[in-house]
């Protein structure tokens, strides 16, 4: 078997990625989903009075939209799992930081009013 492990064997300039079209069906499906969720956001905003539950629904819908944008439009669903993890795992820590600081924010409110 022939191995190419000398520098220069891997020709970055003439590199041609292996690409094939998966058709537009999934893309249009994602579009209608995103549009549907946005319309649902709009409807819920007026139908439901403001509450923690409503905020939860909006954030949940936001994460669903993010899943479809990153997964289908940015093609991350079809990339190697290693790449997906490298990108997604740090974001979990960011979510942790956000929820932690929201909690501390309410504590700041209490302290300011003392």
């Amino acid at each position: 078997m022939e191995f190419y492990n000398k520098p220069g064997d891997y020709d970055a300039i003439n590199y041609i990625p292996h690409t094939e079209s998966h058709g537009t069906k999934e893309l249009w499906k994602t579009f209608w989903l995103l549009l549907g969720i946005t319309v649902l956001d709009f409807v819920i905003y007026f139908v439901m009075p403001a509450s923690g539950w409503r905020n939860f629904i909006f954030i949940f819908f936001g994460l669903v939209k993010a899943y479809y944008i990153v997964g289908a439009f940015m093609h991350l669903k079809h990339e190697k799992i290693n790449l997906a993890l490298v990108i997604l795992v740090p974001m979990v820590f960011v979510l942790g930081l956000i929820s932690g600081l929201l909690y501390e924010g309410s504590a700041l409110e209490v302290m300011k009013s003392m």
Partner: protein
Amino acid sequence: MANHTSTQAAFENQPTWAGGRSPFNVSYGKLMMWIFLLSDAFTFSTLLVQYGTQRFSNVVTPITTKWPDPASIFNHFPFMHGLHLPLLFVSVMTFILILSSVTMVLAVEAGHRKSKAEVARYMVYTIIGGIAFLSCQAWEWYTFIHEGARLDGNTFGITKQGYDHLNSVGFGDHFEWAEGDRTFGPVPFAALFFIVTGFHGFHVFSGVVINVVVYIMTVRGVFERRGHYEMIEKAGLYWHFVDLVWVFVFTFFYLI
């Protein structure tokens, strides 16, 4: 070319991390775009952390709404002066951005089929969508500043009277602030709005510039000669990221 296939085959027989090939099966440029987007995601996260902390430390109290209700401020629509139309304009902006995301991904798909004419056509649609979004944002900023928004102050705090007044009007009714409806609110409100939507708008602007450059390269046949349209994919990754950030700006600044 002939060498290319045998090189590729030899790499595939190597252990993943033995070097000489991408362990993630993506090209250098695409991987670097992903790493850049990750760092950009951190940048936007810091802004959202700041926004969330400020907002939670200025919560709604029974007497006055300390943090301004977005429905009371972003309730304008072009050519419908004086009507109370909360969330409508920003939903249109969201729709424009989703639509331009689809045309972008269709350009990427056309690139996979190496169809130059289709790539060019969908890139034009995407650029038009981006410019339309930026125009909407310019109008939004203009209206907000016209209403009195400043970086160092906030006149959008609402009194109990103002809150009742706002709740008494329905969607599409005539609405005008009365004397004593509004008071001073937490200072960072408008500043955070300008910084976050401004930062996002600047990303949209640079995305449009990138798309224009890529469009010109497509039309001039650069990618045709190169043999692949991967540059469209890289520009697309950036463009979709901008859409992704907007999903969260829309959720946290307008819906909640």
